[in-house]
């Protein structure tokens, strides 16, 4: 009887993962792919922002790096866009070391503000960088030259690819969460002085988390560019890209394994359907909705939806803090 909810959960999860393959509706399939993609970047953000408590509002800089790496690789080198993904990951590592390390000296709000500034700066730089398409941006291949261009009419192949990446990220997160790194991140996130006094090298662990977080966010950016075939400064480096990751994590539960995924499953379909209803391009509405969600979470449920999960499953382990 004890395992009953778990079996049910696994069955529900399997059904959810399989559902896009069963529906013939391309609109839903596209939403499913975008949801999986958003879950990747939100789950990546969650490593440093959720577990590590270092709330970055500038993760779009990684997303943009990944997206631009893909389409720069295509436009400048003529290789398939996905071949740019490893370059994006390498660039994300460099950025984490160069920018992350010094900004870790800042605490709390000051860290968050520094990350906003970095992403805003990146957006301005790219907008003025003619080589990378300036304000207009970059296009991917118009028609597939080979399978490696990963250009499909259906969203399903993308969905499958994104789910595989998401699964490996969540697998990493699961192992991390159980082990020393997960404990150290959670500890330094809630009490740096105490964590240090217990032997936690806090800056080193923040850097580890940021390296993985930035790499997966960059990968998400590359995958986005591969699927959408277009990137401009706003869709790569814009503040809304960062806010998306933060809000999804916070809504589902920052610092929990499935929180960002749950947030993505709620928000992406909501956003896509309202966009479809309102005729698209209504990023103004997104700001309002996200602002409202942030305020509601802050006021009523700082732990996100995950806070209510123990009540539902009758465990009451975390308690409402």
């Amino acid at each position: 009887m004890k395992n009953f909810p778990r079996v049910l959960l696994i069955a529900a999860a399997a059904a959810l993962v399989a559902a896009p393959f069963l529906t013939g509706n391309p609109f839903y399939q596209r939403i499913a792919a975008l949801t999986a993609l958003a879950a990747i970047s939100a789950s990546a953000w969650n490593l440093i922002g959720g577990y590590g408590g270092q709330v970055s509002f500038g993760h779009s800089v990684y997303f943009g790096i990944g997206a631009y790496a893909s389409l720069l690789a295509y436009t400048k080198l003529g290789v398939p866009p996905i071949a740019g993904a490893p370059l994006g990951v390498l660039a994300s590592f460099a950025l984490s070391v160069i920018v992350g390390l010094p900004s870790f000296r800042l605490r709390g709000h000051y860290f968050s503000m520094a990350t906003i500034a970095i992403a805003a700066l990146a957006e301005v730089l790219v907008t003025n960088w003619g080589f990378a398409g300036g304000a207009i941006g970059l296009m991917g291949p118009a028609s597939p030259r080979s399978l490696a261009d990963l250009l499909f009419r259906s969203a399903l192949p993308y969905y499958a690819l994104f789910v595989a990446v998401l699964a490996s990220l969540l697998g990493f997160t699961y192992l991390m969460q159980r082990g020393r790194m997960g404990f150290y991140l959670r500890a330094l996130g809630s009490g740096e002085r105490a964590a240090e006094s217990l032997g936690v090298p806090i800056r080193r662990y923040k850097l580890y988390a940021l390296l993985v977080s930035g790499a997966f966010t960059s990968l998400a950016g590359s995958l986005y560019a591969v699927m959408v075939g277009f990137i401009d400064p706003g869709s790569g480096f814009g503040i809304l890209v960062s806010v998306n990751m933060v809000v999804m994590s916070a809504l589902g539960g920052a610092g929990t394994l499935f929180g960002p995924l749950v947030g993505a499953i709620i928000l992406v379909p909501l956003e896509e359907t309202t966009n479809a209803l309102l005729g698209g391009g209504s990023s103004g509405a997104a700001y309002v909705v996200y602002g409202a969600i942030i305020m509601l979470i802050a006021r009523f449920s700082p732990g996100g939806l995950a806070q209510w999960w123990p009540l539902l499953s009758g465990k009451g382990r975390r308690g409402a803090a």
Partner: protein
Amino acid sequence: MLLEAKGIIKTFGSFRAVDEADLTLQEHELIGLIGPNGAGKSTFFNCLAGDALPDGGSIRFRDREITRMAPHDRARLGLARTFQVPIVFDGMTVRENVMVGAFLRRPHRHAAAAKADEVLAFTGLAEQADQPVTTLGTPGRKRLEIARALASEPTVLLLDEALAGLTSAEVETAIALVRRIHESGITLIVVEHIMEVIHRLTQRVIVFQQGRVLAEGSPADVTADPRVIEAYLGRRAGRHRP
């Protein structure tokens, strides 16, 4: 000498919170550090533990110069501390809090959990192991901080007012715990301002006043010292004492 601090100075602006304070600690000692509020005891602890960098003086621990060493490296060397105002890791259970300490010397999850359970039993927190740490009151949090520090398997443990704010029954359990920690082979410095507690725990006391070491010796000698009485009870009481 296990731990030696010489001429420690710590200033905040133009104010010297610690003013050329010295301390020596032999292996297996249990010494008391007392003094009125604001005497600089916590600041001195912070210098020893690496939480604050002193503006002057030097600290040696286990034959190594550690004056400017990071707190986590001191912890690895075997220096553990608790905070006057407990800092617990919200969002974790009591056991998970202690596991953070245990991971220092036991990188594997199961070994860390086993160490945590051992320490929780030792400190009398076993029953609360699976509770969220936020359910603990102040006495529980103070005990948890001790447990967490013990889980890091220190050589020296610095306790900053671990007994302050406890009821007399809780003080008794806490004194018993400090004694058992000492008997287990750990060297301790106990900051306390209840003189009676110090009497019962230690053979050697250092009295702080205005950032300086005012007196040092056995609890009986120190409490008989007119300067100490003056510091504690105010000028008048000191002067008019027969």
